[in-house]
């Protein structure tokens, strides 16, 4: 079996801010197999976007990574400031609005990146980009090159950015909730498109979302993030069908399609500046035990690629 495209090992990210030091990520480990799709799911504020930014090398000012490594194709991109990964990771952002500079033509901006990272002449780049625009089903791909970002609609802009992410033939595509800003029908189209492109081109995909439905339709593997730590990981179907971590179980119970009565999870995600000791879920956990607040639970392997960070994963929820 070939090594994973992306491997995050024990990554911690801290952010120094006005309210003290925020522990945004702590001991996060996950991996994206070659040609595989990994979904990262979690509530708002659990560190999903920070994880992506760390992988992309665009952490905000004041952020540091005291521990851990991010291996891209076997090389640590934290220590060489993403040098070896440049042009090899495509990014589809959450909000397509200010992802492109509004005063330059969309085509010019993507072509500039291609000149730097992709092989071939300017003609080749242009042809390849038009090809990509066609692949992402942008209307009138040739004219789209000369349009400004504001001249596209929301869905079109997202398609444009998917094309931009694929422009340099990346090994890995990283997507940050690319469909949350869109209406349901457009969302379906974009997801189908993304899925199609991933299988067609044999890409690896790291997909971040808070929507379990979206997750199930795109990803084969899943990692559930809670307050900056991985709570549970495994094949999507298995995790969604039989969640083991109390958080995952309650999260699934919150989904309107699956729950008979909406349970909700009492309490909120802890502030990143005041993470609870031990298991970070223990203040909200229905089956909390006395040891939970003392020590962070290690990941327990369950076989078949599954792992869960809870020693009480077999107990029934109260």
């Amino acid at each position, binding site marked *: 079996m070939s090594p994973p495209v992306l491997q995050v090992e024990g990554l911690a990210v801290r952010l120094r801010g006005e309210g003290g030091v925020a522990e945004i990520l702590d001991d996060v480990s996950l991996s994206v197999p070659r040609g595989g799709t990994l979904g990262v799911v979690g509530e708002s504020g659990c560190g999903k976007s920070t994880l992506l930014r760390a992988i992309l090398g665009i952490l905000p000012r004041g952020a540091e990574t005291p521990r851990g490594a991010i291996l891209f194709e076997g090389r640590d991109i934290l220590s060489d400031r993403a040098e070896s990964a440049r042009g090899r990771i495509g990014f589809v952002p959450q909000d397509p609005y200010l992802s492109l*500079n509004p*005063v330059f033509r969309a085509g010019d901006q993507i072509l500039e990146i291609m000149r730097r990272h992709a092989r071939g002449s300017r003609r080749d780049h242009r042809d390849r980009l038009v090809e990509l625009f066609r692949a992402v089903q942008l209307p009138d791909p040739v004219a789209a090159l000369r349009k400004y970002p*504001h001249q596209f609609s929301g869905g079109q802009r997202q398609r444009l950015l998917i094309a931009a992410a694929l422009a340099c033939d990346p090994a890995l595509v990283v997507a940050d909730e690319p469909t949350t800003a869109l209406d349901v029908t457009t969302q379906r189209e974009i997801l189908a498109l993304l899925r199609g492109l991933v299988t067609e081109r044999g890409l690896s995909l790291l997909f971040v979302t808070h929507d379990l439905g979206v997750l199930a339709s795109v990803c084969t593997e899943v990692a559930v993030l809670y307050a900056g730590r991985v709570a549970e990981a495994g094949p999507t179907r298995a995790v969604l069908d039989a969640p083991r971590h109390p958080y995952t179980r309650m999260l699934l119970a919150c989904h309107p399609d699956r729950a008979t009565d909406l349970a909700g999870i009492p309490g909120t995600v802890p502030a990143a500046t005041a993470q609870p000791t031990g298991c970070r879920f223990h203040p909200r956990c229905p089956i909390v035990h006395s040891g939970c607040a003392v020590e962070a639970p290690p990941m327990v392997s369950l076989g078949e690629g599954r792992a869960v960070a809870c020693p009480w994963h077999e107990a029934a929820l109260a």
Partner: protein
Amino acid sequence: MTALRLLLRDRVAALGGLIVLFALVVAIFAPWIAPYPDDAFESHIMQRLRPPSAEFPFGTDNLGRDILSRVILGTRNALLVAVAVVLAAMAIGVPIGLAAGWREGWLSETLMRVTDVFLAVPQLILALALGQLIAPGIGAAMVALALTYWPFFARTVFAETRRLRSALFVDALAGIGASPARILFLHVLPNAAPAVLVRATIGMGFTILTAAILGFLGVGAAPPSPDWGLAVSEARQHLPEAWWFPTFPGLAILVLVLGFNLLGDGLRDAADPRLRRSRR
């Protein structure tokens, strides 16, 4: 250049551009265009206050000088003051706005509060005070105007920089190792360029007007310089008989200020791709 083509298609803006261009040509070739170029400084007391005629199309002033010639020669002064003041104000205001917008914390706060202080002082009053402090003259007026106009640029650029500082494309640029100066000047500033351009163009008109007011109040240009504001001021004693004396310099001020304002409006519509559809 699509922006230029759009500008020319916009008739009102094209008219403004035409006026400014005309003033520019007049200013450059003033000594050759003016029928009596020596009248800038010489006086002919025998032919004072003649009404407009074939010989003197705009009439003559209280010292018998040809008003047409003095209006033409005054164009140079007006434009020079406008361009110098606006360029100086931009040179101060744009970097301050960029720096204050980019950084967070005491530097940004200090810069913007200083800007606020300058904005709070009425422009004309500060110009008058500075004019008195330094020797009254066109130089003092220019310094005073530049010192009071830069906050507008700082504010405009600051707002745009703040808005874009957290934009993903800025993060991406920083991620691939672009220096702050490069990001600010090549990628953020172009976003503010339309606003700065409009400010600058309208500022030109505004500066001409304020310089004329200062001339009128005796703080700007000094006699015998062919300054428009000064001419209007000198004409006061000869009203209402010599109506032509203040009218033509006054009209020159009006037309040139109008020209700059029309051009400024047109530039905004043409240069900002986001506003492009607004006029159709």
